[in-house]
């Protein structure tokens, strides 16, 4: 069974997914960060594939991408790191790759899916891959390698469109908490009606909320209505402060739960 599916069949509440950028802060920290998050009890991990032009990201994730690329991060190396990690520990939470379409296309979409699947990846988030192109050109390939495609929705996504995505997906829906780039401090009160609306739609897939989740309050708020939340910028900021990665992950997890 796909690991994401397996997670959601077991757990439906307060799911915490953490995003970090591969090859950051140091080139070979990728595996360390995953292990530290795993040990801390993170339910799911999103591994950011650094890109030169991350359009949907705010300054913190942009900076982490720039440093990761300077460190020498690339797709081939990432897959190697994941393979090495897999041979060390087989009890990892579901792993998802998140990034932009261009580096994936240059790598070769099918080859990318094959390698990702081969080193234990369960899903893919590519915010700039449009719906129509996904269905037409890429859906079949992803299914072949048992990879789940995760759709983003925003408060401006129409109900009709959300239902269409819900029908097409088979993992979870990534609800962007407000129309913004990552890492923006956004108004929590305004999100209430959005969360309620999504809850009341009774979608077939679980819904995780991302963008703007950074502490206990902003984690618990979406969890009240939906299945969990995704944190990225706030975790990277903790990594920025330096120190023992295992300890950072532990404290971070505790600060949210």
């Amino acid at each position, binding site marked *: 069974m796909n690991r994401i599916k397996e997670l959601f069949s077991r757990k439906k509440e307060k799911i915490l997914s953490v995003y970090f950028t591969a090859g950051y802060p140091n080139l070979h920290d990728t595996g360390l960060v995953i292990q530290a998050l795993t040990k801390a009890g993170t339910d799911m991990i999103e591994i950011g594939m650094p*890109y*030169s*032009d991350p*359009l*949907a990201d*705010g300054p913190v994730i*942009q900076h982490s991408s*720039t440093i990761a*690329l300077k460190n020498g991060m*690339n*797709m081939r190396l990432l897959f190697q790191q994941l393979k090495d990690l897999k041979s060390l520990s087989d009890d990892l939470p579901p792993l998802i790759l998140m990034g*932009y*379409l*261009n*580096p*994936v*296309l*240059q*790598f070769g979409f099918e080859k990318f899916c094959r390698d990702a699947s081969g080193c234990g990846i369960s899903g893919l988030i590519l*915010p*700039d*891959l*449009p719906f*129509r*192109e996904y269905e037409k050109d890429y859906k079949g390939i992803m299914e072949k390698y048992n990879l789940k495609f995760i*759709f*983003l*929705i*925003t408060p*401006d*996504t129409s109900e009709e*469109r959300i239902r269409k995505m819900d029908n097409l997906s088979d993992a979870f829906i990534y609800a*962007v908490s407000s*129309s*913004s*780039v990552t890492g*923006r401090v956004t108004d929590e009160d305004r999100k209430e009606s959005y969360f309620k609306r999504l809850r009341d739609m009774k979608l077939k897939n679980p819904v995780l909320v991302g963008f703007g989740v950074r502490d206990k309050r902003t984690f618990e708020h979406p969890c009240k209505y939906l299945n969990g939340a995704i944190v990225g910028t706030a975790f990277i900021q903790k990594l920025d402060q330096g120190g023992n990665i295992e300890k950072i992950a532990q404290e971070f997890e505790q600060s949210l739960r």
Partner: protein
Amino acid sequence: MKYGVDEFGYYGEFGGAYIPEMLFANVDQLQKNYLGIIEDKEFRKEFLQLLTDYAGRPTPLYFARRLSEKYRNNIFLKREDLCHTGAHKINNAIGQILMAERLGKKRIIAETGAGQHGVATATVCALKGLECLVYMGEKDMERQAPNVARMQMLGAKVVPATSGSKTLKDATNEAIRDWINNAHDTYYLIGSVVGPHPYPDMVARFQSVISEEIKSQIKNLTGKDLPDLVIACVGGGSNAAGAFYHFLEDEEVKLIEVEASGLGLDSGETAATTQLGRVGILHGSKSLVMQTDDGQVTEPYSISAGLDYPGIGPLHAHLYKTGRAKFMSATDDEAVHAAFELAQLEGIIPALESAHALAVLNKLDVRDKNIVVNLSGRGDKDMDTYMKRMKTL
């Protein structure tokens, strides 16, 4: 139309709308409405009136006698440099500000390289009393300082883009991020035939007035229906798209696009996208993109801020792929040389961008042809660069 856009925004394999969901509502609204609005009678009337009374159209098609003698062809300059604000960019800015108004948007953002599009946007925002914010690479703010001052005098706020090579690509990234953060009230007034569908088609339509005028002017000047050759420089490709638009389906008209090769094609310091790029995604569309083997977009270089861009509009990628247009390139030195030559043969100081188009005249192996060069802008903004070069020429 062989070279037109299809219903999904593709020119052959290039184009589309590769945008995150945060921009979907905005782009979808534009996709569904832009043609209806452009074809609306009232819209057309206001657009044409502003082009005429405000921007100063039609611009002349000028027979450049001394340049023609030198290159032994009949060379006609399409004088976009005589437009209000000094470049073709105003045509598109007027069209899009009317579009923004029809869509009820109150806040306008734009990216700019040479600052010509920024000035054009600041101008139409002043005209319409709309808030205006222009993103500009830090490096470009230095080398095109007069345009920064103009934008500020027009009431726009100029925000430096400090990432990457601090040029047009980075300014565009910042503008797109701003758009994501302010999707409800903000209209993104893109300055070239780039970006997600429908921008490339919309901008090409607003610029198509250039070739519409050339078509009737060339007939008056030569008695022939069509020119033999049309030459334009290409950054994102809006002045080229405008100059070619009504000739695209007339295959007997040869089209030449001139890219900036900076210090030379093999120097690593260049912006010649079709020569060095591969198929990729940049700023919301699939096109040719200068990038590493890993798919990281590379930082281009050109002396001309308006051509210093690692991509090219999807229409142009299609024209390249199909062979409909021929692509040539000019180095910094060749462009500067061509600028001085035009200044001293014809008394016209061209923009550095336009100088790239002029720089291929000596590489053509034709004689006695009717050649139109799109003189996309004037060189006032580039005097600093020209003066520095004058000392070393």
